[in-house]
C-alpha cells in the first residue's frame, strides 16, 4: 500500500507518520507538500497532527484551502483511504469530508497522555483487525479535541455506524458521546484525535496503534 503524508506549514507529526509507514510498516511512502495537487499512485493519504497555519482563525480552517485539499477530496471521492489524525481530523471536518467540528477541550487544558480507546465499530477498513469493544492504548495530544455535531448529524453517525472510536472510561475532553474518531458514510475517510503513529513501536510504550495500520494493510 502506497502512503502519502500531507505536509502543511505547521504540521509536526508528519515525520512520525512517515517513519511508521516507511520503516515500521515497510510500505512505499512519500511526503506531499500542501501546494502539490498530484496524489496519483497513492492508496492512502495521511493528514498528520500539528498546528497547520498556526491554528489561526480555527484549527484546520486555513489548511482546508490548501491546493492539496482539492486533490484529497477527489482522492476520497474515488474511494481511496484518507486518515486524518488530530489536526488532520480537524482539517477533514473543516473541509467537509467528515461531519461535525472539534472545539476547545471542556477543561481548556492541552491534554497529552495515553488513554484507553474503545473500538466502537470493527467493520471498517481501519479497524478490521480489532474486535468491537476492544480497547487500545494510544496517546492523545490536543487542546481542541472536543467533538461536537448537531442532533441530526449524531443520529446519522449512529445509524450508519460511523462512530469508529470512543474514549473508554473518563471522557478526557468533553466530546459528544465520548467520540474519539469517526468515518464518513462510505467508510474510506477516518478522522481520529488519538495518535496511532505514536503507539506503533514497543520503545514508545504501546504498539496498539499497529492494529489500525494492520487493518488497513489487509485491504
Amino acid at each position, binding site marked *: 500500500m502506497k502512503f502519502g503524508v500531507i505536509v502543511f506549514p505547521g504540521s509536526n507529526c508528519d515525520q512520525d507518520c512517515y517513519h511508521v509507514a516507511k520503516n515500521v510498516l515497510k510500505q512505499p511512502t512519500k511526503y506531499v507538500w500542501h501546494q502539490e495537487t498530484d496524489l496519483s499512485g497513492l492508496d492512502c493519504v495521511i493528514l498528520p497532527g500539528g498546528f497547520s497555519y498556526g491554528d489561526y*482563525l*480555527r484549527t484546520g*480552517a486555513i489548511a482546508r*484551502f490548501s491546493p492539496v485539499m482539492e486533490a484529497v477530496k477527489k482522492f476520497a471521492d474515488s474511494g481511496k483511504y484518507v486518515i486524518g489524525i488530530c489536526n488532520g481530523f480537524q482539517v477533514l*471536518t*473543516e473541509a467537509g469530508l467528515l461531519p*461535525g*467540528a472539534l*472545539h*476547545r*477541550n*471542556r*477543561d*481548556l487544558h492541552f491534554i497529552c497522555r495515553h488513554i484507553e480507546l474503545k473500538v466502537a465499530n470493527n467493520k471498517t477498513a481501519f479497524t478490521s483487525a480489532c474486535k468491537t469493544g476492544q480497547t487500545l492504548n494510544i496517546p492523545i495530544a490536543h487542546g481542541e479535541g*472536543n467533538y*461536537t*455535531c*448537531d442532533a441530526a448529524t449524531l443520529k446519522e453517525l449512529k445509524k450508519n455506524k460511523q462512530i469508529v472510536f470512543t474514549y473508554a472510561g473518563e471522557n478526557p475532553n*468533553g466530546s459528544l458521546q465520548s467520540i474519539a474518531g469517526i468515518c464518513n458514510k462510505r467508510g474510506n475517510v477516518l478522522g481520529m484525535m488519538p495518535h496511532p503513529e505514536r503507539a506503533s513501536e514497543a520503545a514508545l510504550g504501546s504498539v496498539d496503534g499497529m492494529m489500525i495500520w494492520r487493518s488497513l494493510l489487509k485491504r
Partner: protein
Amino acid sequence: MARVKVFVYPKKGVLDPQGKTVESALHTLGYKKASNVRIGKYIEMELPDGDNKKMVDEMCRKLLVNSVIEDYHFEVAA
C-alpha cells in the same frame, strides 16, 4: 472605504469552556452577578464603498465562521 465589523460567537447550546472559565474567574473576583459569559471573536476589515453585505456574508460562510459551532453577525459602516 467601508469599515466592516464581524462578530463570531459560539452557538447557543454549544459548550463554551473559555466563557465558563472566565465566568468563574469573574465570580472569584466578586462579580457574582455575571452569568452566561460567552467568548467569541471580533474581526474587522476595510472594503471599498458600495453594497458589500452579500460579499461579507459569503466570507463568513466560506471561511470566517464554522456554522457547526458558531453564529455571527456583522456591521458595515460607511
